[in-house]
């Protein structure tokens, strides 16, 4: 198929940036979206132009590096996939496709479609862990029983890949799905209980410092999340936060 691409080009963080049109031809429907971008970039390099910078690494939907806003949706029109898992069969011959970076005040653009998501790391630094040293003397893994339901729910929350689609999708650029998922994983497990109060207070505090917006429960994040992280996690974080606030 032949396509017109409207792509955000921005030299660096200080550049104003603009949309630029490109044409690609003979795109197979079996290609992944990023393979289509590879074709475009090889074309640009061959004609002496600068290729489009975009983040990507594992190309199997788990590292969370790829981050394109395609036709107004984080990771494009398909559901339950990252940009790298999106395939060209979702598009038609002659389509015009708009490609932008994930936009949020807390995710400044580095170049073209590459954004800086280190705010997510800093939120994790503030409490996204259990304080346990490596020793070789921790208790046996089966010493504490954990119900299958709790373990499964914790796993569902822990499935978050930290891509930032939730933030890019939210009209308020809220990171509450991301933070809620991490808070939930630990809140559901006995190992997370000891530090539960400090964890939720510190992570929410850091989230606010980074300039992420608030949650107004539109649920758009849940729909666009490539890993199907549920809104329940935001509710659970709010409960944990309330509990922690009362405890002080």
């Amino acid at each position, binding site marked *: 198929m032949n396509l017109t691409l409207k792509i955000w080009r921005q*030299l*660096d963080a200080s550049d104003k940036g603009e949309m630029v049109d490109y044409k690609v031809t003979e795109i*197979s429907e*079996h290609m*992944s979206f*990023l*393979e289509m971008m*590879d*074709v475009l970039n*090889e074309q640009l*390099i061959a004609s002496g132009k*600068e*290729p489009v910078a975009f983040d990507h*690494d*594992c*190309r*199997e*939907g*788990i*590292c969370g*590096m790829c981050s394109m806003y395609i036709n107004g949706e984080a990771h494009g029109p*398909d559901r*339950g*996939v990252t940009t790298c*898992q999106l395939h060209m*069969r979702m598009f038609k011959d002659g389509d015009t496709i708009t490609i932008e970076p994930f936009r949020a005040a807390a995710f400044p653009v580095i170049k073209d479609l590459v954004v*800086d*998501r*280190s705010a*997510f*790391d800093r939120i*994790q*630094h*503030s409490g*996204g*862990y*259990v*304080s*346990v040293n*490596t*020793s*070789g003397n*921790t208790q046996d*893994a*089966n010493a504490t*029983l*954990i*119900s*299958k339901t709790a*373990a*499964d729910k*914790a*796993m569902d929350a*822990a*499935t978050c*890949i*930290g891509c930032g689609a939730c933030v890019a999708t939210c009209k308020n650029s809220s990171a509450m799905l991301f933070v809620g998922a991490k808070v939930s*994983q630990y809140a559901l*497990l006995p190992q*997370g209980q000891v530090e539960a109060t400090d964890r939720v207070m510190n992570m929410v505090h850091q989230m606010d410092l980074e300039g992420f917006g608030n949650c107004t429960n539109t649920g758009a994040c849940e729909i666009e999340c490539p890993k199907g992280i549920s809104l329940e996690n935001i509710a659970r974080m709010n409960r944990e936060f309330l509990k922690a606030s009362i405890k002080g």
Partner: protein
Amino acid sequence: MALNSKVPHGPLKDKWTDYKNQINLVNPANKRHIDVIVVGTGLAGGSAAATLAELGYNVKSFAYQDSPRRAHSIAAQGGINAAKNYQGDGDSTYRLFYDTVKGGDYRSREANVYRLAEVSANIIDQCVAQGVPFARDYGGLLDNRSFGGVLVSRTFYAKGQTGQQLLLGAYSAMNRQIARGKIEMFNRHEMLDVVVVDGKARGIIARNLVTGEIERHSAHAVVIASGGYGNVYFLSTNAMGSNVTAGWKVHKKGAYFANPCYTQIHPTCIPRSGDYQSKLTLMSESLRNDGRIWVPKNLEDVKAIREGKLKPTDLTEEQRDYYLERRYPAFGNLVPRDVASRAAKERCDAGFGVNATGEAVYLDFAASFERYGSEQAKIQNISNPSPEKIKQLGQEIVRAKYGNLFQMYEKIVDENPYETPMMIYPAVHYTMGGVWVDYNLMTTIPGCYAIGEANFSDHGANRLGASALMQGLADGYFVLPYTIGDYLSDDIRTGKISTDTPEFDAAEKEVSERINFLINNKGTHSVDHYHKKLGKIMWDKCGMSRNKEGLEAAIEEISALREDFWKNVLVPGTATEYNEQLAKAGRVADFLELGELFAKDALVREESAGGHFREEYQTDDGEAKRMKEFQFVSAWEYKGEPKNAVLHKEDLAYENIEVKERSYK
């Protein structure tokens, strides 16, 4: 220099404990004055950085990705082995050790493997304490599954995302130390050289991938944890950025490179679909617990399937050839990866491949749907369930176990694997070879260590499933943090290492000149042009089977391609900006050297062992034929051109295990 593996004396089962009791330690107050650089933040690098920081060392961590959480360990799916014997099925430290040595086709170092098996149980305890949500059964205990090449269930898992959860565990341990200032994290940075001062590794030269700035970083020791080199094949299941650069740079500065030809071609990957393909996707080996592998018995059926006139589900049991069950009745679909891959290639080479390219076999879950469905019907007290009901109940169980993998398959192939068998074909997945290390995990450069997939130590010529995660975390959490202390105990009075020295000047100059050369070359072909060509040579001549003639040709072709690369490569943009093409050019340049050494290593190893299959050396029924005189590790010393590398042999002695023909029949 003679190779000294520094394996401690004494009985195998006491070696590690006795050794730990005797080595030098650094007192906690002195650790504050010692810096350690860790390159890479996967399971090995992440766990090492966190543990070293917990112990009190000042750690500097480097990752080329935008966050440590994105290292490619995250993509490991199936699970992690540990000799816990929770299932009571006869597992033990010795059995894990035995399986690993046998699985590696008797080409790994006994003492290292035994230590790995010994600490494996600690890993599970540690990860559970960190809040890693492993799968559990209804009683609240940890669940296990089986992997290839073993007869017990010792694999712990978190759905099909075990690597992700373990890496997030190590990442969380890192985060705690980053918050305390004990780890200084350098994201979007790439190590481009090691700096050796007075014969010791004392720092690295790194490039900031956002600004292009070249930076000097000093430390008392340097740990390479940068993963494997599977991307030398262009197409592999590795991440796009996975590279050999860190390992190759230390090799060029004096670290021997061991067994480069030992590569794992994983049997269950999604087949390639066209020339535009940028990478391959793995379908976890755990699927072979429940999936049966087959091709049609008759060539007419193959033809009809390829033409779309026949569906695989139309074929009766009698018309199918479950070739693994036929050839290897004892292990069936759970033979080790090298064996399963070669068997698939054998069938496809004979013309039985089931897709248009002729390079695919079926992985079929119908029998599992039936088996699990019948069991569920009994549990749920459903009398006389219809076949549809049984299938539906069975599919629910399979979905709970592997749902994300089935979804991944459907998104890529556009076929529903619940309704029609998956198509799979072998692909490059892991490299057992790597930087040579001694028992302390130290390379032949004093103070330079290599851990995880970046080293060569534990898997011999073939790695068993769910053992990569085990080795990465064993090295990072439980081995390196002890052994590095023995070396660093001499450095408590050294003080901060200055970066303002002739050695750092020289290393930085070399790095800058190379970058400037690449940028200013303004040739005619893109970096990918060369990478694809290299990949084709590697796959055709150094792939699943190799022979003398092909390997000799590969050495010449790679050498010529490298020359062409340096003359005609085109790198757009400048050196002082975010420039992915420039970063990639450096990595491909290193692959072009490694590839040649790889072919040379494969040529010299005149035997078949594990993932290294030489057509000249096979048994009458086509199995790998080991040769007694090759019972050694090949450690290569850099001497300019890769083809001039000098071979050093580390003889392998097996005192606790009988070396036998490796049979899975």
